[in-house]
């Protein structure tokens, strides 16, 4: 469960980053005038993607695991 959540967060973050980037900087635009973000807020998706990926380690550590009861 813990690993699935972590992996999911990394994947969701990556998708958000790619979608955010591609929509912030339209590739193949013929002129500078066409190079604006495709929709307002697209750069925010990129930023949110980074934050989601970097929150994955927190979830990885915080979510309980089966072998947590072995006290050191």
């Amino acid at each position, binding site marked *: 469960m813990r690993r699935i959540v972590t992996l999911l967060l990394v994947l969701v973050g990556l998708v958000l980053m790619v979608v955010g*980037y591609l929509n*912030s*900087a339209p590739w193949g635009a013929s002129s500078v005038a066409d*190079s*604006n*973000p495709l929709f*307002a*807020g697209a*750069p*925010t998706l*990129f*930023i949110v993607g*980074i*934050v989601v990926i*970097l*929150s994955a*380690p*927190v979830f*990885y*550590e*915080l979510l309980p*695991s089966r*072998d*947590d*009861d*072995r*006290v*050191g």
Partner: protein
Amino acid sequence: MVTDTKVKKSLPQGIGRFTAGWILFFSLTTIILIVGILAFIYESQMGMTVTGMRDIGTQGGATWGLYVVMVEYFIGVSLAGLVLVAFANVFDVMSLRPISRLAVLLTAVSLTVGLMAVVIDLGNPIRGIINMFLYVRPQSAFFGTFTLVAAGVLMTSLVFLFLNGRRDAMLLVEMDPPRQWFYRLWASGYRDTDAEWERHRRVIFWLSILVGPLVVIALSTEGLVFGIQVGRPGWFGALQGPDFIVLAAASGLANLIVLTAIVRKVLDTGTSLIGSIVFKWLGGLLLAASAAALYFQIVALFTLLYATPGAERRLADALIRGPYAWIFWLGLALLVFGIVVLVVQAARGTWGVAPLVVAAVAISTSAVAERYLTVIPSQTHGMMLPYEPGYYFPTWVEFAVVAGLFAFGALVFGIFMKVFPIIPLKSRTKQEVLADA
């Protein structure tokens, strides 16, 4: 029953204890911060005309002034802390463990202050922030600053700080401190089991692996902001990115040395908590980074002087014998002085705290001078169009705002030290974990 006072006294590293010195520190930093805020409010009401900044060329000034210099400086300072901790984690350098939290906090605080300086530099900060989230364009190097630096590096340092602090928070809860809910929240259920310890070790290792490239790429964008501007003599060039990183490492390590020395002095048990081996490591690394920074300065200067066309030549003259000469030579002299002090210490094999702090202050001041010379002269003396050379000097408003930023940073450090151990509490070493297993 144990009284609150007794409990507070038993907390480690002076947490919750306010001596006269601390009260004076908090009072002074708060006053300076308030003066900075008032100066910023004054600037917001009167407009940027109360600063020394003017349009380039037509008004003979610079549109990027002291605030942008401080953006470069503070974001540069942030590099060393996180990278140093990542290095210590990957290579298991236990000697640097006592300053790991201090180093990460330095990264988080200097990044925050650097980003505050960006916002302050905007004529209309609120509009700037909103539009940034809506329309910032990846074609601009600033995109990297606002995404990879602001979101990436700052978030990473906060994650580091949080995860590395969970065990200490748990230990503090056991000491029954006031505001226990805060420490419980930070510990977030940590129980120090073998499984948790191993998971934490794994997370920190992989985060540390990620930190190197992330920080270098993110902070290179700061250098690229200048390096990719074709029409600005002194800025355009492939060296701006690496130069920024190298000077960032030097200034960051210098600040870390000063902070480590202060913490060592301030804490009752500082000398035993932070051994001389820490300063040996920091001194050696600072020497390497400073030598590299000097090399970059010499290469950049040589390139600027050697058979350059008109605009570059005028800029070089302004730097070497013109209005910026005193900053240039002072900065260079301070850097060389710092390196000499470090070399002497290395040759003797003894890394005294006092000489190390002197060298660190000299190198850090030199870094401010270098950032100033990167940002300003190219605007006032690097015009491609036939304008007269310009002039820029910060006004009291800019100095007050920047002093406020420094005070804010110092205040955050002070507050942190009063609520949480700045030096990690005794932790389990790898050998102890193996022995337990």
